[in-house]
């Protein structure tokens, strides 16, 4: 699992690539929490780009909900972009799009 960050206007794009499971969860958790600590006040959105996430299990849902709880305290909106149809199915089953919307 790797995450590349891109700044664009008021948004940060986090491009995740690899497999998101219990084994890689700690890395994702720490990386996104470190990002939050170092954010400037001009950023209001975190867009998680899932186009290169080849595998995800329910661990991914737990990680995202945990990050949502932290980011929402700073009024930073989280969004999910480009999940593969397989990852999208897991997101839909979890109902996570109700709090972390999918954008195109």
């Amino acid at each position, binding site marked *: 699992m790797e995450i590349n960050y891109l700044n664009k206007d008021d948004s940060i794009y986090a491009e995740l690539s690899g497999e998101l499971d219990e*084994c890689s969860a700690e890395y994702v958790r720490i990386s996104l929490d470190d990002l939050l600590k170092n954010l400037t006040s001009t950023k209001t959105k975190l867009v998680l780009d899932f186009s290169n996430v080849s*595998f995800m*299990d329910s*661990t991914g849902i737990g990680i995202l909900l945990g990050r949502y709880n932290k980011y929402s305290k700073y009024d930073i909106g989280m969004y999910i972009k480009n999940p593969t149809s*397989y990852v999208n199915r*897991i997101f839909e089953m979890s109902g996570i799009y109700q709090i972390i919307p999918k954008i195109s």
Partner: protein
Amino acid sequence: MAFDNYFKLEFEAKNINESFARSVVAVFCTELKPTISEINDVKTAVSEAVTNAIVHGYQNKGGQIVLEAGITGNTLDIVVKDTGVGISDIDMALQPFFTTKSDEEHSGMGFTLMDSFMDCMEVKQNTPSGLIVHLKKVIKG
């Protein structure tokens, strides 16, 4: 039960082995010519069962996990066994979003995903301790 093909593996309950376990089963079932979607279903279900054994069964303290898979016709049977702490109330644990570890950001969706992605899921106590998860899927290809 006599399978057309069968394997049994025993490995350490370490999270690095989650990827190993799901990949082994994915490769094992290729003789049934599964679709990409079916492979993903199987990989997710195995990952959930193995993660559950590591995180819940052995409480991240390590142990041994036994993974078995068998093929009969176009049916794939998978068994994941641990000898960890087990689950006292299995019916409760099977409820969507039920988790004993909400403070550690676990979603409680593991059994829900296994049940959704496979045709059959059976969860029972192992003796003298631990859990046995039996998963079954007909690979239509």
